[in-house]
């Protein structure tokens, strides 16, 4: 434990890390201020405190009362009433089979892969039916501003947070792995009683510092966003609200269907949690690379090239053979692909995904693989000549 604190202090003494963190925060503030503002969404959030978020008769009565209480312009009231009046449950009678068939046809897949795709949507149908039973879509969210606000929150902002968190974490991990090389202290450190086992506290310190930096970024960014926006009771609204939707070139416009029932709050927490797990995956991969490539800059370059290759290969290689197709679908579980598809986490995914819960499966597989590769790298390091 003592060594853990020493290693943590070494990392926190790095001005470069703090500088990068500050730059990320500044960037996020700009994103929040420039892209995050939506007058109408704020009005809906404020109204939701009075009306609640369930779109039933009581909602409309409370909406009228709130309007008569002032503070809501006639135009905004009219818009909200227009958007919420006479709405129906989008999940009633909604069939997911169509999506499956469109994806199968567009991807040109047959056999096991086509069946896997159909199975995924058969499973999703159960989730849709459950949502229909709960009238989950009949919730307010941000009414007409839902799609824009949802995209901003869970695609743009969360995407930047995960990217920045991963970069800070990778920077910290590579700094930790290469610290002794940078300071030419490796020989002294690895000849001590602790010796090469110092990698354990080093990794623990780097991971906690990386995850900590991610949470600090998330906390500060959301704090500013929430300070500038009005959410009211919208937190309790379902993300599968009828106002939320996805646009897909193959499947077209379709409701935002999640495997489980998520409120805006729980979906946000799940996204941040999954983001932390993804940051952890990237960190473990970077640490493994850092043990092989002793130069920190070179190690970062190798990390970038490895991830870029993982992105490019599944796109570029023709899917002629079944094994290649299997590799492509398996590649979608890689951290870099999970990062690219963060905007559709906890949903059925898209044409590239044949498994339900792809983000959970992907994170578990990636974490296990990254942890195993980290163990192998550490084992190699223990036996390596340190010339």
């Amino acid at each position, binding site marked *: 434990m*003592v*060594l853990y604190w*020493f290693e943590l202090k*070494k990392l926190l*003494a790095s001005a470069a890390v703090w500088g990068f963190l500050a730059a990320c925060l500044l960037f996020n503030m700009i994103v929040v201020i420039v892209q995050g503002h939506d007058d109408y969404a704020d009005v809906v959030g404020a109204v939701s405190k009075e009306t609640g978020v369930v779109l039933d008769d009581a909602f409309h009565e409370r909406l009228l009362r709130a309007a008569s209480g002032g503070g809501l312009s006639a135009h905004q009231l009219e818009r909200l009433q227009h958007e919420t009046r006479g709405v129906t449950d989008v999940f009633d009678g909604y069939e997911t089979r169509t999506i499956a068939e469109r994806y199968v046809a567009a991807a040109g897949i047959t056999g096991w892969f086509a069946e896997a795709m159909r199975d995924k949507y058969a499973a999703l149908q159960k989730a849709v039916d459950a949502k229909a039973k709960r009238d989950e879509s009949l919730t307010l969210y941000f009414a007409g501003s839902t799609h824009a606000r949802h995209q901003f929150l869970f695609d743009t902002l969360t995407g930047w947070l995960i990217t920045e968190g991963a970069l800070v974490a990778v920077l910290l991990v590579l700094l930790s792995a290469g610290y002794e090389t940078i*300071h*030419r*202290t490796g*020989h*002294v*450190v*690895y*000849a*001590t*009683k*602790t*010796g090469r*086992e*110092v990698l354990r506290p080093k990794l623990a310190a780097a991971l906690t510092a990386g995850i900590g930096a991610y949470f600090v970024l998330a906390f500060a960014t959301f704090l500013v966003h929430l300070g500038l926006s009005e959410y009211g009771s919208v937190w309790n609204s379902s993300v599968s609200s009828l106002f939320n939707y996805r646009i897909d070139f193959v499947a077209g416009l379709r409701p935002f269907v999640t495997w489980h029932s998520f409120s805006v709050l729980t979906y946000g927490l799940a996204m941040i949690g999954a983001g932390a797990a993804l940051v952890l995956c990237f960190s473990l991969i970077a640490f493994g690379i850092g043990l092989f490539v002793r130069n920190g800059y070179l190690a970062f370059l190798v990390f970038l090239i490895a991830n870029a290759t993982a992105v490019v290969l599944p796109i570029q290689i023709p899917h002629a053979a079944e094994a290649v197709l299997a590799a492509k679908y398996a590649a979608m579980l890689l951290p870099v692909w999970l990062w690219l598809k963060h905007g559709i986490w906890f949903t059925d995914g898209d044409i590239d995904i044949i498994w339900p819960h792809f983000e959970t499966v992907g994170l578990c597989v990636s974490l296990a693989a990254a942890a195993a590769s980290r163990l192998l790298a550490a084992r190699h390091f223990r*036996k390596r*000549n*340190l*010339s």
Partner: protein
Amino acid sequence: MLLVDRVTKTYGSFTALEDITIAFTGGVYGLLSPNGSGKTTLIKMLATLLFPTSGSILWDGMDIGRLGERYREIIGYLPQHFGVYKNQSPRQFLHYLAALKGMDRAAAARKVPELLELVSLGNVKDVKMRKFSGGMIQRIGIAQALLNDPRILILDEPTAGLDPKERVRFRNLISELSKDRIVILSTHIVSDIETIANRVIMLKDRRLLCNDSPSGICRTLGGKVFETREMDAIGQPVFPLSQRQEDGRTVVRFVCETGCPAAARPVEPNLEDVFLYVYRDQVM
């Protein structure tokens, strides 16, 4: 006893050390040879940073690789290129190394100031090491090697960067410490070990050349070292060792394998003579 038993170290097709066998029992062992002769490779193997390609290194009959931390906890090691965290103070840095050496906080709190005083850095113990001179950094290196009161002290070029006064202090310190431990001191500077080494180990062509007391090693040139003021008068083939000024004239010291030349007088060989003669094809 620390035993280097028929150790060979190769890097691909390059052989750095070949079939080295040395037994270290106690006292100061001076590892003396020119740069690039394999000293540092041997030292790094003793410090478990490198692993022998063949052969083994045994401490009390057990392989040091297998002993792992049980071996590393009894060694103190100063590498040839010693680095520090320049954004830390000597006190912070030594506390970190004390933790790595498995020392508890109380023991470290006692030992760190004591060692900093010993290496004359007590007055800068809380100053960041950013502006420290090479000599000051080297003294921190010596202090860290002594932190765990090691039974085996391994020092690779320990006097690099030290001024003459510090060198003398260091030699005295090593002499003092060697009473109850093994000190392995690698150097290419003869004066570092001439007066303090119990045994001198010399490597040549990647192999062990000799492992003997300084006087024993000097005896190998007994009757072959001479001095003269009239080098031109020497008609025999000789190997010049050094020269110095005496009463305004140049005195040349040389080795002659074929008896005493008329214009020269025999002198007692010293370790430097042996070093220069043995490595005559390598020394610049």
